[in-house]
C-alpha cells in the first residue's frame, strides 16, 4: 500500500518537474540507459587472476552470496567484475594482496587435507569460510584479507543492477522524501550509492 502511494506521488512529481525543465533532461539523466555492469561474457577468460584463482574466487563469491529465490553473486557476474576491478582499478599492492590472500585460503584448505580449495566439498569450503569470517571478526584478528574479499563481493553484488533493483530496491528519482513508511513483511532495503565508499 504505502509503496504504491510512494510510486504515484513520485511519478507525478517527476513528470511535473521534467515538464518544467522544458524537456532538457537527457535520457541518461532520467536513467533510461541500459545496463553496463555485466558487459563481460560469462565464459570469458579472467584478465587478472589465473584460472585457478578465478575458479576459487567464483566459488567463494557464490558461497558468500548464493543464489536463492533471487540471483546470487554468480548470477550478477560478480567474479568477472572483481577480476576487472583487480586488473583496472586495483593498485599493485592491492593486486598482490588478492593473489597472496587467495593463496592463503588455498593453503588453509590444503592444510585441512584437501588437494585444493576448489577440490574440497561444499561443506568443507563453507566451514573454512565461516572460520575465516569468525577469525576476521575476532578481537585480535591478524589477517584482514577475508574481510577485504567479503567487502568486495558484497560491493560487486549490491552495485549490480540485479543486486540494487531486484535484491534491494532502487529509486533513481524518488521525487518525495517519505519520512515514515510502514514496512511490509517482504520490504527490501533501499540501495544507496555511497559517496567515498572505501573498498
Amino acid at each position: 500500500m504505502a509503496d504504491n502511494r510512494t510510486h504515484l506521488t513520485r511519478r507525478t512529481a517527476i513528470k511535473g518537474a521534467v515538464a518544467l525543465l522544458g524537456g532538457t533532461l537527457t535520457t541518461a539523466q532520467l536513467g533510461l540507459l541500459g545496463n553496463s555492469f555485466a558487459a563481460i561474457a560469462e565464459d570469458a577468460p579472467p584478465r587478472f587472476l589465473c584460472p585457478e584463482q578465478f575458479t576459487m574466487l567464483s566459488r567463494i563469491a557464490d558461497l558468500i552470496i548464493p543464489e536463492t529465490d533471487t540471483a546470487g553473486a554468480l548470477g550478477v557476474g560478480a567474479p568477472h567484475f572483481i577480476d576487472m576491478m583487480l586488473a583496472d582499478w586495483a593498485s599493485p599492492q592491492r593486486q598482490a594482496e588478492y593473489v597472496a590472500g587467495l593463496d592463503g585460503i588455498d593453503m588453509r584448505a590444503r592444510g585441512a587435507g584437501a588437494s585444493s580449495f576448489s577440490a574440497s566439498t561444499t561443506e568443507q569450503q563453507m566451514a573454512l569460510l565461516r572460520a575465516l569470517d569468525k577469525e576476521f571478526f575476532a578481537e585480535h584478528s591478524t589477517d584482514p584479507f577475508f574481510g577485504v574479499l567479503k567487502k568486495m563481493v558484497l560491493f560487486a553484488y549490491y552495485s549490480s543492477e540485479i543486486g540494487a533493483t531486484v535484491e534491494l530496491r532502487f529509486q533513481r528519482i524518488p521525487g518525495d522524501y517519505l519520512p515514515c513508511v510502514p514496512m511490509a513483511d517482504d520490504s527490501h532495503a533501499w540501495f544507496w550509492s555511497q559517496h567515498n565508499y572505501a573498498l
Partner: protein
Amino acid sequence: MRGFGVNTIMPSEVSNDFDAIVVGSGISGGWAAKELTERGLKVLLLERGRNVTHRQDYVTEGKAAWEMPYAGQIPESLTESDYAVQNQCYAFSDYTKHFFVNDRENPYATPDNKPFSWIRGHQLGGRSLLWHRHSYRLSDLDFEANKLDGHGADWPIRYKDLAPWYDHAENFAGISGSNEGLSQLPDGVFQPPFPMNCVEKDIKKNIEAAFSDRKLIMGRVAHLTEPTKEQIALGRSRCMNRDECQRGCSFGAYFSSLSATLPAANRTGNLTTVTDAIVDSVIYDSDSNRASGVRVVDANNHEHRSYGARLVFLCASTLGTTQIMLNSTSERFPNGIANSSGALGRYLMDHIGGVGASGVFPGHQDMYDAGRRGGGLYLPRFRNVMDKDERFLRGFGYQGGAYRSSWSRGNNTPGIGIDFKAELQRPGPWIFDMVGFGEMLPDERNRVRLSKKNKDSWGMPILEIDCEHRENEFAMFDAIAADAEELMNAAGLTDISVNQDKAAPGLMIHEMGTARMGHDPKTSVLNKFNQAHDVPNLFVTDGSAMTSSACQNPSLTYMALTARAAAAAVEMLQEGKL
C-alpha cells in the same frame, strides 16, 4: 538553452572597459556578479577553471553504480597520484571527481606534522557545485565574541547590519528550514523544511526533554521545497530527494552559481564570463591609489594578459584570494596589496570537526523511510550561550540524522551464505549519528605565505599553509565527544560509539579569516563593507573577510556579505567616491 546557459567568450573578444571585475565564480563570485550586474554594472567574471554548462556537463548525474566504470570507485593508483588530498573529502568519488582539483597539478606546502587539507573545486561554479548546502545565520553572540573575549579583532558589523542581507540571500537562494526562535541561530526566510522521520522525531523529543538548553531541528539547507516565481523563472524546480547533489542537479533544486546566481546575472545582459583565466595579481595604480585591473595567465596556453575595470571584487575563495593578494606586490605594498596591516594571510581558521558519535535506535522496527533526503538535522550551539563554560571559549553545533542501514552493514557483520543474504535484504537497524562543527579561534600564528622557492606550472608562487589546532580547540574537541555521548544516551540509543578522529584543519572545508574585516586599518585588511582599507575600489567578499569563524556553516554569510558589499560599492561608485 533558452538563456539559462552562461555565455562564455573567447579572451580576444574581451574589451577593457568593464565597470567591475569579479574574480572567481563560486558562491561568493556568483553573488557578486549577480548583484553588480543587476545594479547596471558591466561585469567581467574571471574564473580559473573550465567552463561547466548547467545540466549538460553533469556527466554522472542520475547514473547508477552499475552504469559507472568501476561501480563508482576511482582507480587506486590514480587516487594516490592525483587526488591524495581531495580523496579525504567525504564527497569525493568517481561520481564527483571532475568537480575537484587535481592535487598533483595544484600543489601547496605544509610543514611536517601540520597537515592542512585544502579541498578545492576549480571550475565555473567553484565549490557551489559541491557544497552540502547547510545554511545558517550568525548572531550577535558571534559578532560580539572577539570583542568580549579578546581573541581576534572586533567585527566591524553586528547582526542588524547583516540581517536584511541574510533575508535577501535566503529569499533568492532558497533555503528550506524551520523558524525556531533561537537567539544563537536567528530565524530567516525559509521554504518548508524537509520532514523528520519517526526516529528523528522521537530523538528530538527525548533530547529536548532531557536538556532545556538544546534543540534538535531540521537542517536549514539550500534546497527548494517550494520554489518562488523567481526561482522557477530561472529554470529551477523543487528537490527530487536523490541526495546526489554533488554530481550537479539538472532540476536546479539546490543553490549553486550555475543554477541560480549566474543565470540571474546573465539575463541582465551585463555579464561577460571568461573561464580558464587564472588571476595572478591585482594591478595597483599608485597615482590614483586604486586597483586598475588584474593580470591573468591563461590556464591552457600560459599566456599573460590583463583586464581593466573601475572596481575589483576578489571572490576566489579564502586561500585563492589570499594567494592573489600576497602575489600583488608594488612599491607601496611590498607584502601584498592592501596589506599595510600585515594581517593578510594570518588568522586562518576552519571549523573543528570529525568528532561525533553514533548509536542504534531500538524502536520503530516496523517503519522505514523512502527517498533520499539531501539534508539532515542540526543541533544548534548550546555551550557558552547562557552560561559560561570554564573549559573552553565559544561553541559548537552538530549535524546528524537517522537512517535505516542498508547492505553495507554486511561489511561489519559476521556471516556468509543464505541467511546472511536474507538478512541484508531487509532494512537494517535504525542508526542515528551526529558530528560536531566547532568554532576555531583566530590566531595570528595560523597563517599562509607565498613560497619563495616553488611556483605552480602557471608561474604563481604556491601557498605554504601553516595551521594547527591549539589549546582551545583541543578542549572543545573533548567537549564535543563528551556531549555527543551524553546526547546519544539521552536520545535513547544503544550500542553507542564515539568517534574521536579529529579532522585535520581544512577538512571541514570552511577555511576563512586571512583578510579579515575590522575597524582598524592597522590590524585588519577590510572595513565594514568588505572594502580594502588601503585601496578603496578593491573589495574582498569570500571567507577571507571573516573576522571570526563562529560555528555555523559559513557560506550563507559569504552570500550576505557579498550582496551587502556590492550594494555599497555601487553606491560609492555612483557617488563618485571610487
